[in-house]
């Protein structure tokens, strides 16, 4: 794979994309191998891998839920949706549960602004939940197969980061 990119250091990001596609994430040994193959210091490879949001240095969770916090989704209630998800999963945004079962991620615009707000659950897009009706939203999330609200919402807290009252 490294050879296909001519073994050149400017192909680093492309190589990392392909490694992640194969392995699901960028492990230490994989980064080391990339560094050797491209004849780059490990610090440079690690520096690039950790800079970009899409590169994962940890194995991915079993289930991934990404909520869109793009502006179109935001003005149509994505903040409330995000709070619902955080409560359900007991996770903050961009967090993975300790047992590796769930990850909650934020994205900025999935290109489905017309159906806002939207979320992606294990690669499947779900659109237009009833974000302003708490109870209906709750059943909508249940229908998606999300766990019931965890017992400790206070531990997670609901800080202001997503812009919801």
């Amino acid at each position, binding site marked *: 794979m490294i050879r296909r990119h001519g073994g*050149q*250091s*400017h*192909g*680093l*990001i*492309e190589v*990392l*994309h392909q490694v992640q596609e194969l392995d699901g994430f960028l492990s230490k040994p994989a980064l080391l191998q990339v560094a050797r193959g491209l004849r780059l210091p490990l610090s440079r490879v690690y*520096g*690039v891998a950790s*800079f*970009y*949001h*899409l*590169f994962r240095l940890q194995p991915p969770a079993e289930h991934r839920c990404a909520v869109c*916090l*793009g*502006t*179109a989704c*935001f*003005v*149509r209630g994505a*903040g409330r949706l995000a709070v619902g998800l955080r409560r359900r999963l007991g996770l903050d945004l961009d967090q993975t549960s300790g047992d590796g079962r769930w990850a909650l991620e*934020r*994205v*900025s*615009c*999935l*290109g*489905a*602004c*017309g*159906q*806002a707000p*939207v979320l992606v659950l294990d690669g499947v*897009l779900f*659109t237009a939940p009833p974000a302003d009706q708490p109870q209906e939203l709750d059943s909508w999330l249940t229908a998606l197969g999300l766990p019931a609200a965890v017992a400790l919402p206070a531990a997670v807290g609901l800080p*202001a*980061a*997503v*812009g*919801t*009252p």
Partner: protein
Amino acid sequence: MVALPPRERSQLRCCGASGCRSAGAGPLLAALRAAAAAGVAGEPSAIAALTTAEPGSGLEVRSVGCLRLCGQGPLVAWDGPEGTRLFGGLPPEGAAALVAQARGLAPIPLQAEPALAGHRLDLEQPFFRLQRPLVLEGCGIVDPERIEEAIAHGGYAQLRRVLQELSPEQVREQVRRSGLRGRGGGGYPTGLKWDTVALQPPGRRYVVCNADEGDPGAFMDRSVLEGDPHRLLEGMAIAAYAVGADHGYVYVRAEYPLAIERLRLALQQARHQGLLGQGIAGSSFNLELEVRVGAGAYVCGEETALLHSIQGQRGTPRSRPPYPAQAGLWGAPTLINNVETLAAVPVILRQGGDWYAAIGSDKSRGTKVFSLSGAIRHTGLVEVPMGTSLRTVVEIMGGGDPDGGAVKAVQTGGPSGGCIPAALLDTPVDFESLLALGSMMGSGGMVVIGQGTAMPEVARHFMAFSVNESCGKCVPCRAGTVQLLALLDRCVERRATAADLEALEALCAMVKATSLCGLGQAAPNPVLSTLRHFRQEYGAVPGAGP
């Protein structure tokens, strides 16, 4: 544009772009093709109709780019003897009825067909009627995966002509005369930038297309990439010829998988046809283009960060000068333009710079593509002459608030822009007018904000975005945005004192003045513009004391 002149043989154009895909275009397209094939069962071409849209298979069902009214997706246009009819939100179960109508084999008239009732969209409504497609000329008409269709629609004709008839200087003259300004946000005169690159000392030059489109709520560039990628490639090749580049990159954000796929296919087809590579179209002009995929960092849309990223480095900006036009990729002069800027080039050469300059307003010539979303009836893509009023775009074309309420504000320019209050909707949309209101043209995302949304929350939303996307290279942006976010939390919770508001404004001024790149410099804009136009919502009166 969306409506075509009447034609004898009917065809169906189904939008296959990502907006409609997210609304179910995939199953609908399959159902339309199956229905079209089923009707001609027994004919040898029936199978072919399932997989491709070969003419002769009875009814042609084609996959095209964005048909503009994305919020009603999936969209299908039926072009027939009576002109074009548009349908939105059709479930796959409705496919057979539409195919029967298009074939003229339906037992009942169109108006009486229950499967289609409620799905017909009016093509005479202002949303469609007031559009002026130039950049989007071919989007929604050509199949983006077939270069033959792009060529039949005039694609690459200007590249061929330019290579045969015009010198690089003559090309640049047309672009200068057109008055075209960069569509990536800054509005820098394109002709001037091209001259700067072309007039550097002899040596290698690069051309780069910025397709990072990171502003949330913006999908203009994506629509060009997904709907008519050959137009971009033609514009890029003309630009390369005009500045003397023989190598280039299109930098696309990783979040656009369909755009990347179609762009790669388009590059392959163009090479195959001799429209890229060595000795293009029989001339001595050579150009190699490559796609580079981002990895989820908004700041990589900034031109110097983008160049670092293409070179396989961390995407941190550097200070300018030197500008990329002087020293860019590997130190060589590099032309960087936005997708829409480059996609406007073929039409400028076809019609002439003066013709283009006659469209639009005084200092902002030509047309601009906007993506409309948020609290608005018609979510989608519009291309209008520069200088069209915000009211026309948002209320007349966009249909205003979906629940019939009043529009509260329009956000333009994404995290670098601001909010324009409803009272100022008569502002013409051009670079200078929006700047004067404390907002920005930005790349063209317009998000409409309804009465139910509090403006400090909007400001906080963008600040959270900037905190998350700051690359951390300089302190004012890295630390300043975090402090601004904390102050905005107090504002949203209505705990802000007058002193907090003063601190907020002072901090905004500091971050604006001392940040290294445009991200930090513009991050305070959403705060400043909402403070300016919606101060009452911030809860404290300056000077009133805590």
